[in-house]
């Protein structure tokens, strides 16, 4: 095949895969069952890299992504660098919210883990509500990154105006602030290097006919409050102790979160956003707490993203079966709900006319089962959840780091046999 005809064949494949995915999302019946490849460290392990390698070696990770996508031939893939390759940047920043392989206590070959803690005290709600950006800059960034502690010295601009703006420049030349600014620039350069490698592999795979499945990441307001601000304990107690403040904060977040998400997606000319959820599942909150503190604010985020022409891929972690009747209240054909342990058949019944369902080959099966187990499970999913379209095959929360390659290959191979 000539170079020109190979390129046009790849371009045709690209269009075909994009259409297959969009047909499923918009609830039309595609030509066959679409798949997405979403994984944190599996692609690295598949190519003999440790988790630490994946976080630090951009080029080797790019080669691993390329090989995994070419071998599995998914209809779209979530770029991996943005999910894991930030080791060097975290070193520069002395980052404190994550524990990662080879750093402090963790061994070389496990994934990074988020450290649940209180990053905003209960007494600081007012401060945040008055000026979220000021809070993030003066207090939050210094807490999550050691190198950025001196940002607490930056001028309080809402009260610094006219010639005081000019005078305020003095702060930037203080030795410790200067060091923080230098760290910011170095971290920025490191991130640009990572992004350049990521863009390179995205372009290469595009040229081979593979679209990207996610152009950014967003959040639910309660998750931001619980995971990133108050800590899990603080947020749960706030449902009783600081109910109104928490609700106020989330009203703000419901505006600010999609603003950031839309900017990220539009910056790369994309139309898909990934939203992992942590606190919405059954058993964590009561139905009443869910409809007070979780869903209304998150629904607003979804509607704003959809309004901006973006398709949210919402990863409902855990089992959300009891939430199905509530969460179906979104415009039809605009959202993907990615389920982990939710009853997929009940999900199809409740949501089949509204959202595209994605998932949910269990992690345990991909790690400990056989290719035959995987094929049987996928067959059942295709015949029931996949009936009439509106379904994307994926693992429960993406391909787990420890999955056996033959099981993962079986899953993606089987989907190609699932013709409508």
């Amino acid at each position, binding site marked *: 095949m000539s170079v020109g005809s190979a390129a046009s064949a790849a371009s045709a494949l690209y269009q075909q895969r994009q259409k297959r995915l969009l047909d499923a999302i918009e609830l039309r019946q595609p030509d066959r069952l679409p798949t997405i490849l979403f994984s944190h460290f599996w692609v690295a392990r598949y190519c003999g890299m440790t988790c630490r390698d994946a976080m630090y070696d951009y080029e080797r990770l790019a080669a691993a992504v390329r090989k995994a996508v070419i071998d599995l031939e998914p209809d779209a893939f979530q770029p991996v660098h943005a999910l894991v390759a930030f080791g060097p940047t975290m070193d520069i920043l002395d980052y404190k919210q994550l524990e990662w392989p080879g750093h402090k206590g963790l061994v070389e070959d496990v994934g990074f883990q988020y450290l649940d803690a209180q990053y905003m005290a209960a007494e600081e709600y007012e401060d945040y509500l008055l000026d979220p950006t000021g809070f993030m800059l003066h207090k939050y960034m210094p807490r999550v990154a050691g190198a950025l502690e001196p940002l607490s010295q930056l001028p309080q601009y809402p009260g610094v105006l006219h010639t005081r703006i000019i005078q305020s420049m003095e702060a930037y030349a203080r030795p410790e602030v200067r060091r923080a600014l230098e760290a910011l620039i170095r971290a920025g350069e490191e991130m640009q290097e990572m992004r350049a490698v990521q863009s390179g592999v995205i372009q290469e795979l595009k040229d081979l006919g593979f679209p990207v499945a996610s152009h950014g990441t967003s959040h639910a307001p309660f998750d931001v409050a619980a995971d990133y601000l108050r800590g899990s304990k603080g947020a749960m107690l706030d449902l*009783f102790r600081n109910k109104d403040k928490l609700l106020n904060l989330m009203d703000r977040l419901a505006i600010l979160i999609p603003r950031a998400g839309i900017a990220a997606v539009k910056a790369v000319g994309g139309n898909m956003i990934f939203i992992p959820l942590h606190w919405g599942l059954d*058993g964590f909150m009561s139905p009443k707490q869910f409809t007070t503190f979780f869903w209304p604010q998150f629904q607003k985020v979804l509607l704003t993203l959809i309004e901006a022409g973006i398709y949210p891929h919402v990863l409902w972690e855990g089992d959300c079966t009891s939430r199905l009747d509530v969460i179906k209240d979104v415009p039809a054909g605009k959202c993907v709900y990615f389920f982990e342990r939710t009853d997929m058949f009940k999900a199809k019944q409740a949501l089949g006319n509204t959202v595209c369902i994605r998932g949910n080959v*269990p992690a345990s099966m991909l790690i400990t089962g056989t290719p035959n187990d995987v094929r049987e499970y996928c067959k059942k999913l295709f015949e029931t959840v996949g009936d009439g379209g509106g379904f994307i095959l994926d693992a*429960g929360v993406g391909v787990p*780091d420890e999955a056996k390659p033959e099981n993962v290959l079986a899953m993606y191979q089987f989907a190609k046999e699932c013709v409508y």
Partner: protein
Amino acid sequence: MDDEGRRLVEHVAEMQEEDAVQLAREMLDSGYDPIKLLAHCREAMEIVGKRYEQGEYFLPELMLAGEMLKAIGDMAKPLIQQDTSDGKTAGTVIIGTVQGDLHDIGKNIVTFMLEINGFKVIDLGIDVPIANFVDSIKQHKPQVVGLSGFLTLAFDAMKKTVEAIKEAGLRENIKIMIGGGQVDETVKNYTGADAFGLNAMDAVSLCKRWVPA
């Protein structure tokens, strides 16, 4: 039960934190028997536990109940002269998040629920080396060991921990339960545990089944 005691039980069980703590303080200030007061708290915790089991209460209520218990306990315990515990427990459980995994919300909730059901729980914390489980079993001779893990990397860590317990000759006399995140029947079989649980109620019923009163 006297009227104050009844009100205290009600405040705690109904999640009225300020009222509960204030009433407890007033009761202690006016000379109420601190041992009796703590017994009321245990009674309230039993109600909270039941409501959780029945799907009326969820994690936020357990968290707040734990806070109230701690606040009242901190006031009452210094007033108690002698050790009044009779040493009776429903059984001993060793629990911990397996090596490599730093998550503890699930483990803490299970610990809390087991404790309010009368079990003595030895909590080894997070990222627990295999040897610590083995040593702790030798020292405390529990009836049950609970292995917790949120991430998929925990599957292998759980399997290795179960194997190490077996190699140390300790497997015969204990039951092992696993839970958290993506644990299911397949993982139970893979790790060689006796059972898995999807939530804290499962953990309590397993322990009650394994350690008859």
